[in-house]
């Protein structure tokens, strides 16, 4: 359980950084089109939140992803068996 928590949080942090980078670029580009250049404070604020949320909930997302993967494959197999 602790291992899952750690793995999930690390995965979450990595995904969070990627997502944060993407988000910052989107927001900064929008402000640049409006003529505002330099460090985008709003973009930075949203990025920090993004990293924080992903890290905090990373383990839950990982657990749900694992459960979802298992159950979806199982349900497809059951449906296939019914059809056959």
């Amino acid at each position, binding site marked *: 359980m602790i291992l899952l928590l750690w793995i999930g949080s690390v995965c979450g942090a990595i995904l969070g950084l990627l997502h944060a980078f*993407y988000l910052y670029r989107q927001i900064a580009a*929008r402000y640049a089109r409006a003529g505002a250049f330099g460090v985008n404070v709003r973009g930075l*604020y949203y990025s920090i939140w993004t990293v924080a*949320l992903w890290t905090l909930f990373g383990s839950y997302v990982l657990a*749900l992803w*694992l*459960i*979802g993967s298992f*159950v*979806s494959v199982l349900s497809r197999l059951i449906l296939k068996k019914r059809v056959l």
Partner: protein
Amino acid sequence: MKGVRRVGIIGTGIAGLATAKTLSAEGLECTLFERGDRVGGVWADGYSSFGVQAPKELYEFPDWPLPEGAPNFTPGPVFQQYLEDYIDHFALRSYIRFNACVTGLEPRDGGDSGWIITIGGDAGDDREEFDLVVIATGLYSDVPNKPTFPGKEGYQGAILHSSEVRTRGPLIGRNVVVVGYGKSAADIVAEAAKVAKNVHMVFRRTHWPVPRKVVGMLPFKWVGLSRMTSAFMPLYQRSTSMERWLHGIGKPLVWIFWRFFEIVIRLQCRLGTEISNGKNLIPTEPFESDTNGEGTMVTPPEFFPLIANGRVSAHRTEIVRYMPDGVVLKDGTRLAVDCVVLATGWESEFNYFSPDIRMRLGTDDDGFYLYRHLLHPDFPKLIFVGRATAVSNIITCSLQARWLAELIAERFVLPERADMVQEITEIKAWKRSWMPYSPARSTRIFLHAQHYHDELLKDLGIDPLRKRGPFAPLKELFAPYEPGDYRSIVSGDFM
């Protein structure tokens, strides 16, 4: 859009009124045509117990809140009065022509310089020219869809469309069958259960309902109307990289989210209840695609209990013919009924167009497709406001009106014709790839409304992230967008 001064608006529902308010505030001369004797569109013509199926904080004009004390899930008459007050507040009444049924709409010089509206009246036809015409007649008030079945001539009972059930009168003490499984069907069934002798409901397909409160606690807007839910819907036509990742490697998350939601709805609404012939109410389509079909509805709280306790007999089949004293169903059941209510929706025919124009707009059986759900590239001065269905379409109509005002003022320009045609081709292919078929599929956006609203704002160069405050990023993800979030845009104060 050079030279637009006079605008003709057909329809005085929320779409027509929002457009008139926005354009008249820009200094344009607006004339609204209403075929009836009062405003409101579908709100003026409502059936008995008609009301808004969204909570009141989601269904009000962004710049004109509902009055304090207005009931939640606003009843039709209250909403109708709200529209009358809106007209008076924004001084729109003098722009409205009542009892003015539009019978013809033809282009002036090919449509590039405007349109000519023909209005039929007791004194004969009248013709007026406009630089731009807005069609704001919506999807729920043109021609009632009334399916016919063999034996109709011999049937001795009443056959009504849902729009004709204005009071409980036609239902009192009668054996009633309601045909359909949409919002109007559920509302009329609930009404009939209070006064009719027996109530039957006949439908070919069921759809996933949305309870007013999920698990009896969480208002549905928190589950269904957030950016997060939008991201979990089948990929939008122009999705972001993150959404593509979510639906790629993150697909199990999406799958389990919707399957969990279906389990909750199934249990809460008792969809497994056995109805006639051993069938039940569980839909066959997954929630995330079914919700973009015809029948998704926020059900009256009493609807499913009425079926579960037997007060309403539900039949998952269809009518094959009338008998003199009732109807015969496909599964062989004979129902002795003296009142048939067809809650089977509407058809949009646009009979005022010439066959040539109607053909050019599109004759696909799932409706004609428009650029930004607003205009056809061949007719840039013919705008359809209100042809994008969403849960809170009052927000959608208001934003569309603002989009149009900005376009007329040339504060942004349309893309080239070829690009608009390409966009329409892509959205057609996108919708047909996953949305269930319905005659109005071209208009459906529903839980993708957030994406659509963002697109309209990006066209105007406005930041689509509207939440404010220290917790704005959290609100952007989890909180539903409400009309108030767009107040400054709709009122024009964003510039």
